Structure formats: structure tokens, C-alpha cells
């Protein structure tokens, strides 16, 4: 059933080195079908680009990546995790697009001592009290961008901000993350039903409020709706819109000019000036014909993290303690700059404040303006037992 082997350098199979493993098998899962396939697709594409740029080898070992679709169902994801462990005997499980599915597969994977690397979800439990030496993240802790925005707003000295987010766990976490750094006053804190299509009621409320600015968190398709309706309601000039996780390179084309002037928090942008990023962005655009989103960066870094660690142990990945230690210590150049992990094995990175501006091609894009939080990990690392 696992015919979807992506890359199999056949030559590597024949050579039998004495000590090092002869290949590395990766189990990749993300949501690739159904209405919410966009993040999963970005992650898969970023991962495939990295494997391709490394010539099909990770740390010198021929790589075999088994790509699976979790269908955005927890029970399917859980089964894939078991398949990776029992049937495919993978050396690492990678990918993951939604936090509820990440939580569903977390226990079976780490209990089976499988190296697990998340390219997107970073729930607070996994960064804090439930952290594991087998779990790594190349993305972020879920509050990070909101914390970056909070720090920026605090620095700017804004007051009386209107906070709005969907009514679910991540919505509350993001608002809490913002408040961790933003100490100013709050005009109102509004949570909207998760599947709401139309924000007209909330926008009218904002219009009649005395807030000085609005902070919004609306991921994915919700962000497209919210930002467009916000602009149409004529609120953009009166109430500057600050956001986190609401617009990214995957949704900007759908929002268009309505996003111009939006202030966002981010850890990466296509024009971030470093050699790795140039190679990544141009490679991605050439291969897929579109601008990559941050999720693709994280997936790219997942492969680079593995590459660095496998090299460090000279391909002896079956020596688990050494491999884990190498992953933990790994440092390499990411499109985001120097990559490094914190004690809880989540990245330490810099968060920026950016603005959506018209690019040279006339299309809106996120342009980094200022550092908001430098070399920051997350708020939960101290509650993680790994020090």
C-alpha cells in the first residue's frame, strides 16, 4: 500500500557499509486532500524541494520518503503513525499540518521512540509539560507570532486595542500570547464562531467602538474573508489592522490589494536577505511556480535539520542517543538565518514586524521592517523537564 515512495536511490541499497545505516526512511504525513489541503501541500512541497536540493540524500544516506495523507482525520493520522512505526519502521516521522492531529499522533510516536519533527503545529503542551526528547519542531510554538506582535505593539506604545479571534483553543492561546508582551489597555476581546463566514456584525461593532487599533487572528481561509471584509467596510484607515497568522504567502494572492498596509508579525519573508533564503525561494518558485509560504520553510528546515544531524553522527542513525543529541545540537543556515534549538527542542529565532506592501511585480507581499523579538524561544520551555 505504500507505493508512494518518493525517492529511492537504488545504488545506496546495494552498498553495505559496516557501521553506518545504508539508508534513511522518513514517514511524512500531512493533510493533502479535502478543503484544507493548502498547508499540507506547502509542507510537502518544501520537504520535496529540500530532498531534491540535497540530491536525494540526507546526511549522505539515500533517502526514502513515504508520503501519506492524513485526510484531516485524527483516527486516520493515528493509524498512519502506527504504520510508520510498525510497518515502515521509519527513522523519523515528519510533516504534520494541524495541531489536533499532531496531538493525536504524538503519544504513539514518542512512546515508540520515533524521532518526530513538526513542520507546523507547536501546541503549548508539547513545548512545555509534555515535551519529549524524541520531539522536535522546526516551526514555532503556537503563540510565537502573537508574542512578536505583542512586543511590537508594546514598543510602539499603543493603547486601547480591539482584540478579535475565532472561538477555539488556538484563538485563546494567540490572544494570551499577545497579552504576554502587550501590556496596554484592551478595548474589547471578541471571539467568533469558528466556521463563521460573514464578519459584518463584528465589523460594525468595531466601527462603533472607540478603539485605536485592531488585532486579529484568523488563520487560513478565515483570514482571507476577514481581511477582505475589513477593507470593504472601510475600517482600514480608521482602525489600523495588526495581525498574526492571518495573512501569509499562501493567502495573500487571494486577498489582493485589500491586504496592503496590514502590519503582521512573522519569522520569515521571501525577501529576507541571506544566501540560503535566496536559494530556497528561487528554487521553490522555479519548481512550483509560486511564492513559498512559511510552512514550506519549516518543512525545508526539517530536512536540513536531519541532514545536519545525520552528518554529525556519520550516518550511524541507529545509535539513537547519539542521533538525538546531534539533532538537539544541530546548527545550520536556514532561510530564516542561523537555526538553533532551545532546551525544549523548539527553535530559538527572531520575530519581525512586517508590512504588506506592493512588490516590484505589483503584487502585495510581506516586507520585513523591524525586529520585534530577538533570539526568542517560547514561554513554555521553562516548564519542560529537559534542561
Amino acid at each position, binding site marked *: 500500500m505504500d507505493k508512494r515512495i518518493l525517492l529511492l536511490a537504488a545504488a545506496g541499497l546495494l552498498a553495505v557499509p559496516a557501521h553506518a545505516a545504508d539508508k534513511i526512511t522518513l514517514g511524512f504525513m500531512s493533510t493533502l486532500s479535502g478543503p484544507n489541503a493548502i498547508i499540507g501541500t506547502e509542507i510537502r512541497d518544501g520537504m520535496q524541494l529540500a530532498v531534491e536540493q540535497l540530491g536525494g540524500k540526507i546526511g549522505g544516506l539515500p533517502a526514502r520518503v513515504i508520503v501519506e495523507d492524513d485526510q484531516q482525520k485524527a483516527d486516520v493520522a493515528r493509524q498512519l503513525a502506527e504504520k510508520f512505526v510498525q510497518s515502515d519502521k521509519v527513522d523519523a516521522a515528519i510533516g504534520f499540518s494541524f495541531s489536533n492531529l499532531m496531538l493525536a499522533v504524538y503519544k504513539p510516536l514518542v512512546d515508540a521512540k520515533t524521532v518526530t519533527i513538526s513542520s507546523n503545529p507547536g501546541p503549548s503542551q508539547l513545548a512545555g509539560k509534555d515535551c519529549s526528547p524524541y520531539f522536535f519542531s522546526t516551526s514555532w510554538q503556537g503563540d510565537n507570532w502573537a508574542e512578536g506582535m505583542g512586543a511590537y505593539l508594546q514598543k510602539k506604545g499603543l493603547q486601547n486595542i480591539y482584540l478579535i479571534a475565532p472561538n477555539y483553543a488556538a484563538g485563546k492561546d494567540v490572544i494570551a500570547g499577545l497579552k504576554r508582551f502587550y501590556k496596554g489597555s484592551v478595548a474589547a476581546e471578541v471571539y467568533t464562531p469558528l466556521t463563521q*463566514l*460573514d464578519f459584518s456584525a463584528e465589523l460594525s461593532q468595531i466601527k462603533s467602538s472607540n478603539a485605536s487599533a485592531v488585532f486579529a487572528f484568523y488563520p487560513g481561509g478565515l483570514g482571507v474573508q476577514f481581511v477582505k471584509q475589513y477593507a470593504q467596510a472601510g475600517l482600514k484607515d480608521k482602525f489600523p489592522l495588526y495581525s498574526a497568522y492571518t495573512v501569509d504567502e499562501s493567502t495573500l494572492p487571494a486577498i489582493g490589494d485589500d491586504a496592503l498596509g496590514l502590519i503582521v508579525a512573522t519569522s520569515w519573508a521571501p525577501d529576507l536577505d541571506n544566501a540560503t533564503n535566496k536559494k530556497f525561494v528561487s528554487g521553490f518558485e522555479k519548481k512550483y511556480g509560486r511564492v513559498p509560504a512559511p510552512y514550506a520553510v519549516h518543512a525545508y528546515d526539517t530536512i536540513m535539520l536531519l541532514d545536519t544531524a545525520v552528518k554529525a553522527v556519520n550516518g550511524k542513525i541507529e545509535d539513537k542517543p547519539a542521533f538525538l543529541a546531534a539533532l538537539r545540537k544541530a546548527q545550520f543556515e536556514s532561510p530564516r538565518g542561523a537555526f538553533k534549538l532551545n532546551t525544549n527542542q523548539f527553535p530559538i529565532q527572531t520575530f519581525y514586524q512586517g508590512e504588506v506592501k506592493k512588490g516590484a511585480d505589483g503584487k502585495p507581499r510581506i516586507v520585513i521592517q523591524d525586529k520585534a523579538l530577538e533570539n526568542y524561544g517560547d514561554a513554555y520551555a521553562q516548564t519542560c523537564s529537559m534542561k
Partner: protein
Amino acid sequence: MSATLLLEQCLNGMQLGIMLFLMSAGLTLVFGIMNLVNLAHGSFYMAGAYLGAFVYASSQSFLLGVVAGLGGALLIGLIAEFLIFRRIYKGDHLDHVLVTFGLTLIFNDLARLIWGPAALFARVPPFLSGQVNIFGLISYPAYRLAIIVVGLAVAALLYVLLRHTRLGMLIRASASNRTMASALGVNVVVLYALVFALGAGLAGLAGLMAGPIFTVIPGMGDNVLILAFVVIVVGGLGSVEGAFCAALVIGLIDTLGRSFMKPLFGLFLERAAADNSAPAIASMLIYILMAIILFFRPQGLFPPKSR
């Protein structure tokens, strides 16, 4: 809460209601006349949104976009009717559920195959992008006002069509007694195809107008479809007038519930409790309403007269 805010929220509610009505009109007609449960109705809505946005963006002509969205949905409806639906009218509701559930899966994947998993750009035409001042009281997005106007016009046209034309008479005749109508020489096959295409076109129009304010994304019709079902069940299956009333009621209740539930709860609950429970109740409000209405009136508010 000020009077202007209340007025504005009522407009918002009306606009949502109008969108729901356009979605439900076809659904309820098709049910009333062909006795067909169509879970794939949301696909016509999606087709209208995708085709409208895509053609508008590539041709730079809003008019062409409208024609493509509306005509495309109509045409897809006609083709689907010819290939599939006319074969299952005689089947039972289970057949309908199975086939149309399958069709939804196909259409969603088709949209993803053609336009990719990311959302598609759909913009408001420049001449509708500003704000309109209403009675010097509130400024309201021109586009949303246009949706209300178009929706009301379509509702009026539909009323005239159904009540005062020969075609409408035939449609009503077939709705109240299919066998008798066909015995009297009504070409039921053509009539069915027409009604079906009309419903698909209306859903396409709703999708077309929804594009610039919602997200044009695979599966976008599914959420709206469930709301449309609530509308037609509350309104009384098969009744277009009922669907119109129910759509407005549901649009208003949903919008007002979302905006005034929290201050209302705040009157007798602690702030934290109100903050927590209000959005949860608001998201369930219309389903609760539906359950209550069906409990007291199992046939909906305005059931069509005898069949």
C-alpha cells in the same frame, strides 16, 4: 447599543439572509417539484464563485465574470441534470443522498485539481468598492448593499415568474400534483431540467456574489449548504416564499445573536462566563431555533398547500 448600530446590524443580517435565500430557492424548488434531496447544491454555489472570480480576473471584465459565473453554474446544472439527476428522480431519498454526496466529493476535488488547494482571488468591482451613505445615518459597504438589492430583485422576479407566468403555473402545477400535470400534457422532462438549471443558476449567483467577501476555496459550498438546508426546512419544504421569510429570519437572528448575545449575557452572568458562553451559544443559535420550530411545527413555518 445605539440605533445606528442596530440599523447597521439589521442590514448585515438582511444581506446574509439574502445570500441564504438565493442558495435555498433552488434547493426548495427542486425538492418541491422533483422531490429531490440535493446535497450537491453547494457545488453550484462553488462553481459560480470560482468561474466568476476566474473569468473576471483573467478578462478584467466584471460583466464577463458575471456571465461566466451565472451561466457556468446554470450550464453545469443542466449537464448534471441530464447525465445524473434525471436518472434518480424516481429513486428514494437514500439514492439522492448517496449520489449527491458523491457529486459533492467530485466537485470539491475538481476545483482543487483545476485551481489548486489555495484560495482564489475574487475582487469587488471598482464601481462597488466604496461606501454608501444611507439616510445620512450610516456608511455601508456599497458591495453589500448591492447584494441586498440584487437579491431582492431576484426574489421579486422569481415571485412574478412563479405566480404570473405560464411557466410558473406549470411549475406550480407539477409541484402540487406531478402525475396530473404530466397527464394534462405538461412536458415534465423539459420542465424538470429547466427548474433544476434555474436552481443551479441561483446558487451560482449567490456564489458569484459571495466570492469577493468570502473565501473562494474548494469545499466552500458545504458550510453554506447546511445553512440553506436549515432555511428550507424552517421555511417549509417546497415553498419559495417560506424560504424567503426563513432566510431573512435566520440571517437576522444569526447576525443579531452574534452581536448582542454577549452584552445580553453580561447582564446576568459574570464577564468571564459571558465571554465563554456567548460565542458558543451564538454558533448553535440557528440550530436551536430550527429544533424549536420543528418541534412545534414539524412541517416548517410555511408549508406549501397540499400535494
